């Protein structure tokens, strides 16, 4: 069974600084997808970034980038130039490559990030 572990329950960072959130996972699958979701106090789950396991290149979306280490089963999220609006709960999620109709997320327990002014 797949598991996703986020070992940092809470983190804080000064505005404009850089912060890295950790995520490790366990799977025997070779083809899968990894995601970072953001959940602000509004409760809306917002997709931040995604990574296909077969891609060597780390995904980047503006200020957000990942460090994907497949052999180590590590998928950390780096937020550069942190902004107050980045304050939220961040969830790492795993999804194995499967036939349509069987997609399922496995979510980590989340990291609460607070950006300080």
């Amino acid at each position, binding site marked *: 069974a797949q598991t996703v572990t986020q070992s940092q329950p809470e983190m804080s960072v000064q505005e404009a600084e850089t912060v890295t959130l950790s995520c490790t996972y366990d799977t025997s699958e070779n083809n899968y*997808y990894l*995601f970072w*979701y953001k959940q602000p106090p*509004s*409760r*809306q*789950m*917002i*997709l931040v970034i*995604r990574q*296909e396991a077969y891609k060597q290149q780390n995904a980047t979306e503006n200020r957000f980038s990942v460090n994907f280490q497949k052999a180590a089963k590590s998928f950390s999220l780096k937020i550069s130039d942190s902004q107050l609006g980045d304050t939220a709960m961040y*969830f790492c999620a795993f*999804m194995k*490559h*499967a036939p*349509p*109709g069987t*997609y*399922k*997320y496995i*979510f*980590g*327990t*989340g990291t609460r990030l607070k950006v300080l002014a």
Partner: protein
Amino acid sequence: SAVISQKPSRDICQRGTSLTIQCQVDSQVTMMFWYRQQPGQSLTLIATANQGSEATYESGFVIDKFPISRPNLTFSTLTVSNMSPEDSSIYLCSVTRRDRGPGNYGYTFGSGTRLTVV
């Protein structure tokens, strides 16, 4: 990506009663999912709702407690039945489309329903 309207956004209910949560999508989607997020916890999948077939429930969740309807490709409901304080959680629906691979864009989530059972 799809836009989801989920309601109610919050409710406070008496134990023993039932609450039905609605999820309306602005486009046709193949699959709809219902998640529970207990206080301070991560998201746990309750069931997958496909139009025209019975919902598929995850381990630990049963139809009698969480009946689901999926009458068409844009709408679904989740009922939390015979509620107890342990059912106090955030309930979220999410959608994806069969013709898109999961790695293409991930899922779209509703804004959630915060349920408090007293």
